[in-house]
């Protein structure tokens, strides 16, 4: 494989402003929706992450828009209901603020705002949710509404209460009237159901009762330190379970206040700069603080019953301010996530702090933001509202080996087009057709189509807009061209699948292409989700389509959703271009769209046959054997049809952009081309299905994930894409994630462990599962080996009674969560652990050890950690078939140090000067 190493894509990382877990603690027997982490960024994006037992997956991104930022996020949980003996789990609802006067509730399924509420008050700076009614409280007053209200603190000193009752969202009352005198409310938190604690900019923490809006107490922090501003800003307040209030302020101290008397109990100086964020664990035995000095500090209580806290340790996990933190315990996890302007969320072990590694999650989206048109040598990337297109020229004489792109003269690439999308919404997806003549860009509000004309002599590109049908005004989640360039598939916000036929695509004429007015709408199988699941928790969020793939002959379409379902569709019939293009059939379009909307609510009724239309004699229908494909244990992150191997020698095909021409279709029959679909899930399980048969391919059957190399099973990073290499009879697939590139040879089987049946893995699996429960990490980076522990205490202790070594016993418990590791309240919520091939005993994926080729000439797998962080790998050339090099790809890296973070208050080593005061 010919690799170009690229670092010129200026993808801007966006500051993490807010982090929120949908639950802070899930008990063993608690009925709750599976937890999600919402990350709010300064560019207005909200990312939804699924912790899934430590295999963090960024599931979806709710795209923001221009001048929109997410400054605060909060989840609420509607109370559970009992209907016909079944518990309907209360809905998880996500609210955000963005330095405006409104609070927005989000529709997670559609990725759009659901409701907004605002009132006559200043800009909202902070928001907090009322704690849910506990069982004992519920027993005390059975009539009370058990839901969670929201309190918002405003810059004009107002505190506003919003109600979330009755699946609605509205302003309930203004608790504290805004006034010019009042200081800004910077942080707010509920101490219990009725008492709210607000940290202000005037060195005061104010306590209010929401029942009557009366001030309970004002706690002042005194005046600021000498030489600094007089007023102390209380950046963050949190309460512990016993009511103790913890505050972090601009003096770099955290202060611990008595929850009953509202008096200062202790102050701990642990930061050299402002404390910006605080987090606690659920039972109130640990406090974490993050500050402007980049430190993350852990506090633990000292001595039993003394109510004194002490800093236990601190570290610098971030390269910039630690702006926000959130903690989660449950389901085997015990983890703290922190974020800041360095854009990468960092997961820190909570219960096992110091005994497990931290882990930085990538700062760019799971979906690769890079596309290419290999025939033209075009590479495209997008972010926010911009699309950049580069023309990568072939190296006339590729003497240099891999990765030497930096040494190449800059003429190797040229930015040929920079497109700024009109409107406010950020781009959700973009696609290039294989010829590089069409660009489709989708936002939440519309889909745009551009014609690209590359002038090779001058190396410039002309971009012109193509008119699109009015149905495209609703926006889309995903867009993709088929490999033959004839079809444009769009996935709409409500996960509708729409296929449009491009009329003049593929022709070199300068005439503007247009879209066939008739569109095929495909609907997925009804997966028989029970009503009570749909109504509660996250609703039908997990049916959100995230992946989409065409087969190389463009006759099979596969889509997958978060829940792990795969739907496949086939194109039947002969292409008959003689059929007339009907005039814009607005009636049909509108009716179909309305009906499909109603579909989506009831989740795809079985009317699709009447809806699909025959276009040029061809018709998209559901694959008859689609039902045979099973639900996967975790969300697929890569769908890729294997390109047909019986192609012309240079017809090396790509995963996402195969470049093969349409073979002769057989009328009214299923396509006969290559139908093998490779699926990689977020937990790095690799399957290959024969879609038309609805079964696993022979290779996949022979090679279950348990046979994959140990090194691969140990990696933590989610797979982000793949590249096929089928040149010269090879059957190789190159899989990449943020930190590694891995090659598997699909023509070979992995060596099977002796004495274990390949298929009958029942017993072996069970024993493995039991073992894993013990040394599994709690959601962060994996267990630190004994000899590298830096916490001043070992895991084990030796017991000696008068010269006789008696025994060794554990000193450090595994996290308390582990007891309930394998029991999950919701079957669907977490992946089936028996299929989790992950073994996080080691930090294998973290050490950059480039591993050379193994001894034998043709290994069945190979990997490298040389490239990181990989933003994407795309095919940019056909590859020199003669030389046997295989496809020519560009590995796009985006190192964080090149990303250019905003300026810091505190430099690298300033503490040296200040330290002793010399």
């Amino acid at each position: 494989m010919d690799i170009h190493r690229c670092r010129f894509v200026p993808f801007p990382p966006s500051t993490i402003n807010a982090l929120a877990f949908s639950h802070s603690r899930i008990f063993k027997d608690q009925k709750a929706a599976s937890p999600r982490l919402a990350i709010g960024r300064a560019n207005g994006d909200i990312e939804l992450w699924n912790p899934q037992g430590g295999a963090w997956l960024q599931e979806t991104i709710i795209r923001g828009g221009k001048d929109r930022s997410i400054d605060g996020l909060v989840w609420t949980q509607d109370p559970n209901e009992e209907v016909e003996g079944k518990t309907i789990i209360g809905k998880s609802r996500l609210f955000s603020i963005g330095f405006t006067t409104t609070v927005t509730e989000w529709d997670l399924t559609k990725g759009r705002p659901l409701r907004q509420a605002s009132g006559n008050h200043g800009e909202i700076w902070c928001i907090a949710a009322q704690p849910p009614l506990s069982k004992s409280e519920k027993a005390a007053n059975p009539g009370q509404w058990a839901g969670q209200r929201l309190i918002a603190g405003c810059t004009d000193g107002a505190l506003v209460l919003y109600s979330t009752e009755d699946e609605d969202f509205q302003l309930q009352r203004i608790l504290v009237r805004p006034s010019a005198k009042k200081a800004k409310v910077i942080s707010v938190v509920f101490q219990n159901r009725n008492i709210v604690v607000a940290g202000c900019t005037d060195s005061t923490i104010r306590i209010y009762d929401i029942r009557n809006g009366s001030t309970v107490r004002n706690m002042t922090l005194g005046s600021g330190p000498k030489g600094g501003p007089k007023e102390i800003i209380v950046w963050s307040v949190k309460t512990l379970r016993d009511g103790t209030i913890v505050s972090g302020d601009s003096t770099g101290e955290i202060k611990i206040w008595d929850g009953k008397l509202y008096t200062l109990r202790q102050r701990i100086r642990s930061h050299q700069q402002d404390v910006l964020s605080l987090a606690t664990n659920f039972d109130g035995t640990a406090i974490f603080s993050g500050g402007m000095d980049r430190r993350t500090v852990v506090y633990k209580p000292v001595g039993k019953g003394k109510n004194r806290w002490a800093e236990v340790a601190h570290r610098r996990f971030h390269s910039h301010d630690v702006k926000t933190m959130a903690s989660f315990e449950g389901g085997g996890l015990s983890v703290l996530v922190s974020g800041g302007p360095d854009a990468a969320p960092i997961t820190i072990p909570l219960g096992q702090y110091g005994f497990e590694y931290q882990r930085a999650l990538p700062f760019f989206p799971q979906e690769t933001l890079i596309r290419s048109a290999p025939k033209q040598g075009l590479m495209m990337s997008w972010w926010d509202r911009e699309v950049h297109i580069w023309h990568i020229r072939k190296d006339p004489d590729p003497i240099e080996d891999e990765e030497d792109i930096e040494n190449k003269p800059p003429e190797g690439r040229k930015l040929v087009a920079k497109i700024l999308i009109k409107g406010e919404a950020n781009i959700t997806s973009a696609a290039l057709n294989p010829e590089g003549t069409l660009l489709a860009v989708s936002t939440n509000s519309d889909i745009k189509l551009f014609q690209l004309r590359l002038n090779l002599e001058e190396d410039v590109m002309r971009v012109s807009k193509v008119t699109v049908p009015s149905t495209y005004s609703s926006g889309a989640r995903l867009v993709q061209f088929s490999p033959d360039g004839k079809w444009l598939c769009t996935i709409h916000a409500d996960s509708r699948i729409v296929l449009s036929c491009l009329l003049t695509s593929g022709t070199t004429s300068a005439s503007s292409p247009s879209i066939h007015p008739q569109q095929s709408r495909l609907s997925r199988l009804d997966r028989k989700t029970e009503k009570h699941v749909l109504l509660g928790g996250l609703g039908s969020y997990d049916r959100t389509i995230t992946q989409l793939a065409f087969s190389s002959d463009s006759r099979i379409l596969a889509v997958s959703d978060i829940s792990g379902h795969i739907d496949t569709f086939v194109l039947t019939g002969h292409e008959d271009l003689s059929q007339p293009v009907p005039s814009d059939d607005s009636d049909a379009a509108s009716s179909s769209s309305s009906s499909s909307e109603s579909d989506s609510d009831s989740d795809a009724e079985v009317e699709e046959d009447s809806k699909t239309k025959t276009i040029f004699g061809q018709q998209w229908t559901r694959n008859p054997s689609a039902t045979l494909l099973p639900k996967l244990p975790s969300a697929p992150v890569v769908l890729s049809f294997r390109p047909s191997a019986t192609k012309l020698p240079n017809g090396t095909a790509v995963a996402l952009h195969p470049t093969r021409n349409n073979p002769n279709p057989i009328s009214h029959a299923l396509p006969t081309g290559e139908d093998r679909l490779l699926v990689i899930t977020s937990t790095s399980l690799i399957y290959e299905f024969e879609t038309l048969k609805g079964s696993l391919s022979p290779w996949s059957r022979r090679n279950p994930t348990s046979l994959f190399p140990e090194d691969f099973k140990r990696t933590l990073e989610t797979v982000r894409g793949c590249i096929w290499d089928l040149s010269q009879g090879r059957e190789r697939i190159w899989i990449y994630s943020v930190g590694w590139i891995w090659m598997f040879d699909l023509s070979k089987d992995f060596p099977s462990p002796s004495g274990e049946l390949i298929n009958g893995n029942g017993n072996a699996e069970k024993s493995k599962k039991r073992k894993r429960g013990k040394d599994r990490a709690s959601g962060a980076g994996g267990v630190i080996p004994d000899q590298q522990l830096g916490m001043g205490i070992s895991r084990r202790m030796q017991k000696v009674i008068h010269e006789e070594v008696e025994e060794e016993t554990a000193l450090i418990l595994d996290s308390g969560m582990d007891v309930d590791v394998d029991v999950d309240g919701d079957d669907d919520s977490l992946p089936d652990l028996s299929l989790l091939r992950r073994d996080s005993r080691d930090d294998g994926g973290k050490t950059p050890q480039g591993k050379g080729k193994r001894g034998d000439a043709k290994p069945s797998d190979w990997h490298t950690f040389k490239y990181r962080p990989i933003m994407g790998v795309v095919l940019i050339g056909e590859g020199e078939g003669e030389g046997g090099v295989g496809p020519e790809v560009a590995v796009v890296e985006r190192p964080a140090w090149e990303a250019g973070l905003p300026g810091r208050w505190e430099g690298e080593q300033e503490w040296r000067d200040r330290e002793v005061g010399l």
Partner: protein
Amino acid sequence: MASPLKRKRGPVEVLDTPKRSKSVKDQSGNPLRPAGEKAGWGAAFNPPQELVVTTNGVNGNHSHRTSESPEAVDYEAYVQDEKYKDALEQREKSSKNVPQGNNNKTLAKSEEQKAIELWKLSEPIGGRMANADPVFSRDEKFLIVANRKTINVYSTSNSLLTRSIKPNINPEAPRYTRIVAYCLSPTDPNIVWVAFSDGSVFRIDWTIGTGETDYWMISSTDCIHMTVTSMESAGRRRDVVFTTESKKDGGFRITAQELSIETPSESPTRTIYTTPNRMQFLKSAKEGSVIVAASGNRVLVGRLRSTDYDTIANIRYEFRVFESTEAIKCLDVRASNRTESEGLKKSLKKSPIVDVVVGDIRGVLFVHHDLLAKLFSQQADGKLPPGISMVPRKLHWHREVVHTVKWSLDGNYIISGGTETVLVLWQLDTGKQQFLPHMSATIQNVVVSPTGTSYAIQLADNSAMILSTAELEPTANIAGIQASVLESEEPLEAQIQKIEEPSWQPLLVQRTPALINPTDLSKLLLVVGQQQEVSATKPLVMSNPFLQTFDLGSGHNISRQAFTRTSITNIDAAPSAHRISEPRVTHMKISHDGKWLATVDEWTPPAREYDFLKHRSSSLAIEQQHRREVFLKFWQWNHETGLWELVSRIDSPHSLGPDSGDAGRIFALASDPSSLRFSTTGEDGIVRTWTTKTRKRDGVVVRAKDGSAYKNWHCQHAVCLGKPELLDGTGNFPTSGSVAFSEDGSVLAAACDNEDGLLHLLDPDSGVERLSHTGLFEGAIVGMEFLGQDLIVLSNKLFVFDIVSEDFRFAIKLAKSPASLSLNQKQEMMHLAVDQRSRTFAVALPKFSSQPGKPSLWAARSELTVFHHDSPEPQLTEQFPTIVTALLPAISSEGYMVLDTAAEIHTVMKKGSQAVTALAQSTSALELDTVPDEPAGENLLEEEDVEEMEDYLPTPAATQDGVDEDNSEHPVVSQQQLSEIFDIGPSFALPPMEEMFYQVADLFLSKPLAQSV
């Protein structure tokens, strides 16, 4: 398994106090070898065979007035190896006897005895403080600080030495036996327990100074650490001594001993823990119910299983062992009573709250709160109860090893110190730190006084101070000699890999420039550095930018001032983590009137800073040479400030070659004993003479306030030795050289190395070469001094050359081992000094024993030999167990002062003369305080002294008859001898009358008195 320990009686030694200055030196108690042992000097020199014949210096063996090298009296060394010493002695004796016949034999013997009579070595003063926690007396009126082998009691009110107690250790103990720990007995505050590294434990009453003779051997191998606690069981309270030591069969153990003075012969002992790892630290709390020990990176916490034991032999402990992160350097325990005990197991309800703080070699402090209860609260199933967090607090401020950490009495603070020279007070509740920066050196030990009102801090520069807790102001300061010392063991932090600093290869100990102020004879000036410990296996190139003035009379530090640029920074490291190097003062001389001081310092930028020039220049050393800085500085004494003031600084007084602009090293600096004149020679082979010039501005003399004219120093003349074209042609610069003024300042002898040993005699006034003579040295010239009309030159041969008659008086060839040393080793470790008054000169030579394995300075020692200028037969030969770093004449009396790597000053003097250092006595010895109450025990001891002395007196007694026959009946006391007693200083500095009486009486009565005292 109790093995009874027997208390042993050490060899009795009469302390060499002025009171008994005549007493015969004890053979075994003294670390130094007694004089007269021929083996020693034979090892350093090839002793001349026909010594008797050559007494007048006109030896037929060498030719007169030739430029050729004289026939050195050569005596083929028998052995260079130590293990053949015995054989050597025997053979030497026999060989001496055989050729000389009977007459010669007796004569030689009498000569030899005479030498023994004439010279002796005084008890050392000064010394290095042992790296162990100092001890406060319970009333905080005294602070006990131990030296290598002595216990010194200082008064906290006036910082004066109150009492010095020297335990008599086993004579067979290894050379480097030292105090490893000492603790105040919790039962009896007058008792201090002292543990030596050879495994002996002393119980000393520090208030009266008894107990120094008896000891227990707790281990036949060694002792690493000790702690003492008071335990009560079976209605008996006793001191229990816990020690950690290595076992004979490998491995290490902790033992508990009850060392009782009532039953000294039967002391129950019990091993309570054994481990294959070395245990470097031991501490007990709460009357022995809790023991905490450190072994590598492991922490041991033990608790007493039952207080119901009758003897120590039945004591039982239960231990919990866990690992910390890095090797543990220091540890402290604080036990307090438990007030709340909910949620604890029944067995732990009454256990104390044990807070432990651990400091490791990477500078991290770990604070374990309530460690004991947590470790022992394990449930039956082996699991810890929920809610217990074992994770300690991590306090990381120190960049490098934490040398010491202590809890404050109330437990709210911990106090730590390390190489940062900052005392850090951690306020545990708030996480705030308080700093006391810029202590003069690495903080080695901190102790909190019993009432918590003061801290005692021991620093690595051989000083200790007491700080008040409230204001952090010093209330007492004790400083010893800050010259470089050899480390006593490899420090724990050596296992941390650090950036390599330049070190001496082959191994050597740098010389310490030292001199005695001729106007104030009790003032010793020493050039010292900030760090003093020299690594035994990898001695770094040490800088020594400070001048320490030490009062020999009182044994006190007087002042310290900087001589060169000193870069004292908050962090004593450059951004590249290298140590900041400071200049090294290589020479220091004082003018005859004591008002002017000349110093030479040199600084070479570290090679690593010019790594980037590698591509340009072939040799990094040349680039370094370009940037070398050498200064000759002249300092004037200022009476008002009591400091030396810099008057003139001459940059690059010598260049690297005749045409070079780079600064060349200076090999020698000499001071004119008659006028204000100094002379230097350096790498350019030029002798420069420096003298004063009255400072003028516009022709007007610049005067100070008191009307005296200011003076500047300038180069009077420069004389090129040897032929410059020769120097030029070869491009080889001289690598050694020397200059010396004659006693009256009329002749300046100068030489730089050349093949034929060419030495020039110059007229210092005019710079005219008067005489040149070849064959005066062989190999590199190390030192040169005038003794009357004789010129003594130390090189591979020791020449005594009469410049008037141009005759060699005698020449002695160095034995093979000193002669084969490298040039650097010779220049830094060979010493030559002359004493004009006694017409003697002394030579100190290093001696490396050729033990297999890694070379180490621990195997090195020094040998001092004193010669009379008339005789090649040494007057005194002394083997020092340490290495001599400075040798200088004791101007006040006949004799020499020797400074060694134990930071001790020995005085070599004639019998009957009074050493200046003899005054450096404790106040109790001077009996300034209280009525001398002589307990019965002391009398007893002295009687025993006498008895034992008689055992080995016979030999000297016999010789006495032979030589000092008339002395015994009618002692002739010369005026000089008397003046030595009375003229040792100003009247206020004189010893008490009693002392002087004894000294005078000694002169007249000689031996018998010593026996009757």
